[in-house]
């Protein structure tokens, strides 16, 4: 069954020019370097990767907050790659973004009521008070919070306000960039549960961008693993977490500590750092840190291919891990 596509990215690249002296050849940071990616209605897709993997940039291109350098962005079945200004309004009604740091993404001089009416006004409408109160109720806040200012809230409550703002225009897809990484553990769980509740109540879909693999495991039905601007593996969460095919995914998962004392894990400790996205390695971006790299890895970049014949689970590796026996 193939339900409606909410978001489709085709070969998206996003390069940032480095400000440099004119006599130097212009250096570019290849933040996102050829990503294709689909989100269907009802799905929660996790986008995981370490710092510098390009996951946040990808999220911003997908919401058209950034222009892609090349490639195609389709939202709700429509090519919106070149849309600007007014034409982006309907796009904003479909896709909204929730940011990492609610402290920084809420204007401290605006009351919650004003913050929540901004998206309505951006669409050229005016919300009623009842609409604003309903929004607050959706995220577990109440009418009395409407006149307060961001600093009067705790971190978890601020993130709820951020989510309410995103919900104002009744979007179909929320792209959440590290939605809980700034929160305490006990508060994290509240926000993750809220996202799950909203999915059930409103039929929302999500892209959850996070570096915390356990968070993504908890919320995502499908997961894509990014490394140096490319997706190296994607598939249903159960399969990817249980049987990672890409050596990077395997190493990443093995590095996550497990809250079970006495359990020693077979840890693959990667050496070195992530290479700079200014000059990524030739061929496979992961080959410089890979424990399986061979000559072929340096020549051509591997493409995403089905793992063990499962079309949903794909990895970009010449030597994928064998299925667990």
């Amino acid at each position, binding site marked *: 069954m193939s339900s409606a596509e909410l978001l489709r990215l085709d070969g998206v690249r996003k390069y940032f020019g480095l400000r440099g002296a004119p006599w130097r050849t212009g250096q570019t940071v290849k933040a996102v370097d050829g990503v294709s990616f689909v989100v269907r209605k009802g799905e929660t897709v996790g986008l995981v990767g370490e710092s510098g993997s390009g996951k946040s940039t990808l999220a911003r291109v997908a919401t058209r907050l950034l222009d892609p350098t090349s490639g195609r962005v389709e939202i709700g079945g429509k090519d919106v790659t070149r849309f600007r200004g007014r034409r982006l309004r309907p796009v904003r009604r479909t896709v909204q973004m929730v940011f990492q740091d609610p402290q920084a993404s809420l204007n401290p001089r605006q009351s919650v009521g004003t913050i929540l009416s901004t998206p309505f006004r951006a669409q050229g409408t005016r919300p009623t008070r009842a609409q604003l109160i309903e929004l607050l109720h959706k995220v577990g806040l109440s009418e009395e919070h409407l006149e307060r200012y961001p600093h009067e809230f705790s971190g978890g409550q601020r993130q709820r306000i951020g989510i309410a703002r995103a919900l104002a225009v009744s979007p179909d897809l929320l792209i959440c960039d590290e939605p809980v990484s700034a929160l305490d553990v006990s508060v994290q769980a509240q926000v993750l*549960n809220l996202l799950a509740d909203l999915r059930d109540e409103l039929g929302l879909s999500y892209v959850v961008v996070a570096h915390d693999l356990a968070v993504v495991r*908890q919320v995502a039905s499908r997961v894509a693993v990014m490394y140096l601007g490319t997706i190296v593996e994607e598939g249903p969460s159960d399969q990817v*977490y249980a049987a990672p095919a890409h050596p990077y995914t395997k190493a990443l998962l093995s590095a996550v500590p497990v*809250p079970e004392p006495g359990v020693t894990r077979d840890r693959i400790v990667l050496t070195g*750092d992530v290479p700079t996205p200014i000059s990524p390695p030739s061929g496979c971006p992961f080959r410089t840190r890979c424990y399986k790299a061979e000559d072929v890895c340096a020549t051509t970049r591997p493409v995403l291919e089905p793992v063990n014949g499962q079309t949903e689970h794909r990895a970009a590796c010449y030597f994928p891990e064998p299925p667990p026996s």
Partner: protein
Amino acid sequence: MAEPVLEVHDLRVTFDTEGGLVPAVDGIDFSVAAGQTLAIVGESGSGKSVSSAAVMGILPSNAEVKGEVLLDGRELVGLPSDELRKIRGNDIALVFQDALSALNPYYTVGWQVAEAYRLHHDVSKKAAFQRAIELLDKVGIPDAARRAKSYPHEFSGGMRQRVVIAMALVNDPRVLIADEPTTALDVTVQAQIMQLLADVQEEFGTALVLISHDLGVVAEVADDVLVMYAGRAAERGTVRDLFHRAAHPYSLGLLGAMPRIDVPPRPRLTTIPGSPPSPGSIKTGCPFQPRCAYTERVGERCITERPELTPRPGEGDHEAACHLGRRPEAVV
């Protein structure tokens, strides 16, 4: 049990602020022996970082520290600042969370590690720099002799944290206090750094106080755990006590709230309602009471009477500060 290197008794820290006296740490005890790791777990405002700063004697001047801090039996609280200075960075060293801001941007990393050595050893600058290179090499910085001349911003996050660790280890401290040493790092780098700390501990028998909110990291490296909440100890015991026999509703809540990678996802995470209180905002009764699901079963006592750490019968040194005598059930 080996003789403790660092012992803390009834540590209290009060900040004198414009809004009045704020108790940030309200009477905690812990100890750690050579080669052992004690984890102090808590959320923001729990007082875990203030406790470590108090042990180091590096709190701002508006902080008042009471209680005992014994290093090899020697009392540090109230020591003249000159004496204390000789101990800081020499016998007890600190590893900070954010290595970028912990390092001085204006000096090379080699200079900064060498400075830590020169402050406690009467050696030439050259010899100290040599020692710095040696340590940078030991913590796994490739091409240490050359990299010692680089500035902090020229390193990656993981490499910077290695520099900070080198700086902490340069005087062979007896106790290492690591305050969220891997929180700012990626998980693959975190694994490298935790491995490095474990290696160091094994080689030098350093006692490690690990301050962390990450229960996964704690489970992996700690021998003993102290769970702090609102400046007080909620629970104390071995790492197995906490993870297998959690006795405080808060500890249990933290474990339930944590998404895990090793088990299939639950439909919903267990949550603790509300947020951690700001220090000093709860004056009577159990500080966790407003968020606790067990208050009803215990009744008035939770509101009127402050629970003290009490040993759990038949569980060795395992203690919890909760009026609920029996073990709380996992499902609320």
